[in-house]
């Protein structure tokens, strides 16, 4: 009986080790910025994006809407109170996969082109999006960059007085 419990203990731990063999990179201060294509003044940046990237291709981003800083305070108020309703929907989340992760060699320096597919939840609406980006490996330091458009009506954001879409760019330097 004792032998059995020791064996099952060992089995349990080795199985656990297997599960945790994948490497996860993280940061709490990735940067996302966006700009309206029709008006350069409509732009904002958020430097407190939490992100995780696993070497099996799983990637996630979470950010707080109130963390977006605009050049103009009045625009920031409209963005929070009228368009994004950040008291009701304080967070945006993306969970996805890098579909060609096998082409990224985390042990070799270089910039690798990647495609990301996943679900973006914004303003209480979840929608699948795809984006092209890059992963850069530089002496063990991993960073990721992607650009993608966000269409306001896809996320039920009524901002037609300002813009129909914004171009977003996300940049993460992982630790």
């Amino acid at each position: 009986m004792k032998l059995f419990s020791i064996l099952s203990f060992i089995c349990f731990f080795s199985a656990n080790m297997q599960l945790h063999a994948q490497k996860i990179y993280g940061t709490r201060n990735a940067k996302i910025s966006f700009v309206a294509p029709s008006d350069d003044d409509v732009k904002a940046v958020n430097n407190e994006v939490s992100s995780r990237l696993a070497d099996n291709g799983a990637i996630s981003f979470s950010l707080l809407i109130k963390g977006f800083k605009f050049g103009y305070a009045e625009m920031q108020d409209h963005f929070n109170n009228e368009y994004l309703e950040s008291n009701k929907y304080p967070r945006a989340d993306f969970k996805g996969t890098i579909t060609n992760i096998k082409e990224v060699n985390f042990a070799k320096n270089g910039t690798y082109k990647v495609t990301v597919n996943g679900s973006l939840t914004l303003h209480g609406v979840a929608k699948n999006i795809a984006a092209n980006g890059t992963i850069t490996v530089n002496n063990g330091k991993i960073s990721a960059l992607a650009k993608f458009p966000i269409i306001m009506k896809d996320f039920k954001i009524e901002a037609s007085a300002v813009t129909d879409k914004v171009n977003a760019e996300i940049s993460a330097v992982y630790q």
Partner: protein
Amino acid sequence: MKTWLKIVLILIGIGMISGGIVAYKIFTKPHRDVTAEKAVTLTAQGLYDAFRTNEANANQLYLDKAIELSGEVLEVSANQDGKTVVNFKTNDPLFVINCTFKTNPGELKTGSNITFKGICTGYIPDANVVINEGVLIK
């Protein structure tokens, strides 16, 4: 001058003035200055406990509010725009209070206790509570 023309001109004038006022408001409204605001005083652990136990309630209490936070410095770093970021320690090794300074706080030591005042932007489960636009109090 015909009366209807006068009315039209007056209306156009009113429109231009009110448009000007709106534009003036948009482009001149100052950003929040946290140093001038009365803050809610909390420890890093207290803020974490509030969000972990009841996020909706903590959002009501702290979201968008000025917070004066005391705690132990776990890490000091800089964000991609060169602003100083301090992570405050909590009793959960994976969870911190992530605080970004708007002004340079000078040298901060890991393991020291500091007080920071900033604006709480919310809670990211399994990661951190975010406070930004902050200044060093002591």
